[in-house]
C-alpha cells in the first residue's frame, strides 16, 4: 500500500514539475504579492518619521505667529511651507498639499486675550483636501498641540506666572514592541507574508483542484476507477502530493521574506518546531481545501467561480489583507470560523510574537480539524461517475 501511495504522490509531483512555467507562477505569485504588501506595511511602521507637508499663511505676523511657525517647523510631524493665501488655495486644490492653515490677522492677540478671559477665541482657517483626511487629521493634531505650547508663553509674557508653560514635558513615553525582534516594521511585513502567502496558496489550491477536475473530464478517473485501487487512496495520494507542493511554496515565501525583510522566528527549538508544525498544518489544510473545491460544482467553471469568491471572502475576513483589529467586532467573531484566520494567527504567533509550540498548538489543532472536515466533505461529494453515454 505504501508503494502505491508513493507512486500516486510521485506521479503528481512529476506532473507538477513538468510544466516549469506553471511551477514558477505557483512560487512567484505569493512571493511577489507578499513582498509588495510586506513593503507597504513595513514602511508604514518604520521608525523613520513621516512628515505631512502643509502650507501656512501668516496674516497675523505677530510674536505669536512667528514663535508658532518656528516651533511648527521644528516639529517632526509636519513639513511647513509659508506662502500667501492665493497660492495656498491653488496648491491645495491641485492636490499638492493636503492642508493649508491660515493664521488670520490679530489671531495671537485675540487668542491670548481669550485665554486670560477664558472666553471664545479666534479660529484658524483650514483649507484641506477632503480625499486626504488621514494626513489632514495628523497635521491638525500637530497644529493644535503647537498652539497650546506657544500660546501661554505669549499670553503670559512678562508675568511671573508660568501657568501653561509647556516647554518641557512632565513625562514621556518609551514604546517597546512585543515581537520576536522588537521591531514593528519587520513584524508587520511578517504578518503580510503570512496573509498573502496563505491567500496565494489557496488560489494555487483552486488551480490544483481544476487539475483534478480536468483529469475527470479527460477520462483518467474512469481508468483509475477501473483499477483495484480504492477511491480514498487516490484522494489520499492527491492530498499528500498537494500538501508537499504547498509546503514547498510556503518555504519559498517565508524564505524570501526572511531574506528581504529580515523577520525570523525566535532562535530556539520550541519556536522552530512550532513554525514547522503550523506550516505543515496550513499545507494539509490547503491540500484538503483543493479536494473540497474539486468536489463542488459539476464543471471546472462552476467550481472555480465559487471557490475564488470563497477565497477572497476568507482572505478579507481572515485578516490576510489587514490585521483583524481593523474589522468590526462581530466580524472578528466570524473570523474564528475561518481557517485563514487561524493560519495567519499561527504564523503571527511564531514570526511576529516570537512564540513556541505551546502558543501555536491551538491553531494546529483547529487547522487539522478544518482539514478533516474538508476531506470528509470531498470524499462524500466528489463525483466519480461519468455522464450517461
Amino acid at each position: 500500500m505504501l508503494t502505491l501511495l508513493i507512486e500516486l504522490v510521485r506521479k503528481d509531483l512529476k506532473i507538477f514539475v513538468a510544466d516549469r512555467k506553471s511551477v514558477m507562477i505557483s512560487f512567484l505569485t505569493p512571493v511577489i504579492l507578499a513582498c509588495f504588501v510586506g513593503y507597504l506595511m513595513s514602511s508604514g511602521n518604520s521608525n523613520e518619521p513621516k512628515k505631512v507637508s502643509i502650507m501656512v499663511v501668516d496674516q497675523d505676523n505677530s510674536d505669536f505667529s512667528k514663535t508658532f511657525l518656528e516651533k511648527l517647523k521644528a516639529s517632526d510631524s509636519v513639513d511647513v511651507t509659508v506662502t500667501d493665501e492665493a497660492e495656498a488655495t491653488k496648491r491645495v486644490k491641485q492636490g499638492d498639499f493636503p492642508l493649508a492653515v491660515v493664521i488670520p490677522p490679530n489671531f495671537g492677540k485675540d487668542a491670548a486675550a481669550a485665554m486670560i478671559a477664558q472666553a471664545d477665541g479666534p479660529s484658524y482657517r483650514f483649507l484641506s483636501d477632503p480625499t486626504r483626511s488621514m494626513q489632514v487629521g495628523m497635521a491638525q493634531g500637530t497644529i493644535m498641540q503647537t498652539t497650546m505650547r506657544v500660546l501661554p508663553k505669549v499670553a503670559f509674557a512678562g508675568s511671573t506666572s508660568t501657568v501653561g508653560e509647556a516647554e518641557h514635558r512632565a513625562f514621556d513615553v518609551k514604546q517597546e514592541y512585543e515581537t520576536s525582534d522588537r521591531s514593528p516594521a519587520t513584524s508587520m511585513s511578517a504578518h503580510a507574508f503570512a496573509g498573502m502567502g496563505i491567500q496565494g496558496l489557496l488560489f494555487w489550491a483552486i488551480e490544483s483542484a481544476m487539475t483534478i477536475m480536468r483529469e475527470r473530464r479527460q477520462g483518467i478517473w474512469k481508468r483509475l476507477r477501473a483499477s483495484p485501487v480504492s477511491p480514498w487512496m487516490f484522494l489520499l495520494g492527491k492530498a499528500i502530493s498537494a500538501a508537499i507542493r504547498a509546503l514547498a511554496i510556503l518555504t519559498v515565501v517565508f524564505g524570501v521574506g526572511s531574506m528581504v525583510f529580515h523577520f525570523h522566528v525566535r532562535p530556539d527549538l520550541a519556536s522552530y518546531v512550532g513554525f514547522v508544525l503550523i506550516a505543515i498544518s496550513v499545507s494539509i489544510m490547503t491540500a484538503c481545501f483543493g479536494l473540497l473545491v474539486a468536489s463542488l460544482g459539476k464543471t471546472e467553471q462552476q467550481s472555480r467561480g465559487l471557490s475564488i469568491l470563497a477565497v477572497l471572502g476568507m482572505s478579507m475576513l481572515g485578516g490576510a489583507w489587514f490585521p483583524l483589529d481593523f474589522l468590526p467586532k462581530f466580524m472578528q467573531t466570524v473570523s474564528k470560523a475561518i481557517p485563514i484566520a487561524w493560519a495567519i494567527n499561527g504564523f503571527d504567533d511564531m514570526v511576529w510574537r516570537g512564540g513556541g509550540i505551546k502558543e501555536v498548538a491551538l491553531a494546529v489543532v483547529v487547522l487539522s480539524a478544518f482539514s478533516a472536515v474538508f476531506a470528509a466533505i470531498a470524499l462524500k461529494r466528489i463525483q466519480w461517475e461519468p455522464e450517461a453515454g
Partner: protein
Amino acid sequence: MLEVQGLRKSFGDTVAVRDATFSVGHGLCYGLLGPNGAGKTTTISIITGTIDADGGKATLDGEVISTKNPGPKRNIGYVPQDLALYTEISALDNLRFFGSLYGLIGQHLENRIEYGLELTGLKDRSTEPVAQYSGGMKRRLNIVAALLHEPSLIILDEPTVGVDPQSRNAIFEALEALASEGKTLLYTTHYMEEVERLCQRVAIMDNGSIIAEESISNIRKLLPQTNEVVIELDGATGKLTAALPGTQRQELFDSTLTLEIADLNRDLPRVLLALADMGIRYQSVRTQEGTLEEVFLHLTGKTLRD
C-alpha cells in the same frame, strides 16, 4: 468467462441500459455495436467496475464485478474511449504509474512495459512527454496501459476513434496478436469493418437495449432473405426489354445490372438463361452478402453514426 445478466442503469430520468444480457467465452473477441447514446459506454463502465448497476449483474469467472470489489478488476484491462493519459509526463512514467495500480513493481513491471511498447511500436519514443505524440501514438499507448498486468479480459471502448489508417492497422495487429495469445476481447466501435475483421460474435445495442446477439456469420441472416446479384453486361443492353424471371428488383445503370433475388440457387440460373435467350452476353456475375451496416439499419432504422 464474462456473463452479463439483466443489467439496468439510469441517470436521473434517462435510462442508459435496460436489461442487457450477453456472455463472452474465453479467448473470443466480442463486438458491441451501437450508435452514440446506445448505452455501450455505460454497459462497459459497469463491466469494468467503474460504476454500479441499478439492477442485474456482471460476473467475471463467477465473481460479481462492482465498484467495491477489487478482485475481478485485477483480471480486466480497460482501454477507455478517452485518451486517459497524463500528457505532461513520458510514456514510461505513465506506464510505470498505471502498472503500479495493479501491484506491478521492479523488473517485472519494466519487462511488461517493454513488452507493451514493442507490441505497439512505441519503444523508440517512450521517454518523450506524451503531449508530443501523434493521436495514433496516444491511442496505442492508451491500449498498452491496459495490458501491463496481463488481464484475461481486455475491454476496448472505441479504441480507434480519430486515428490515421497506419495507426489503426498497428492497433489491429496488436489486437490480433492478443487474440492469438488467447485473451478475451470485448470491443465496442462504430466501424463495422473492425468488428467483421476482429470479432467472432456481436451484440447490437440501441436505446439501452441489446436488440440482436449472434455470431458474425449468423447475424447477416437477420436481413430479409434476399440476395443482391450484380451482372456486368457485355454491351447490347438495349436488348434487355423485359423483366427477368425470379427477380424482386431489377436496375440497369450503364452496363451494370443489379438484381435482387429471393433464392440464389433456384433463381440465378433462370436469370442467366433468360439473358442468353435475349442474346445478351455478360462479363462477370457476382453476389453481395448483406453487411453488418445493413443489418444495423434493418434492425434500428438508422445508421451506426446517427
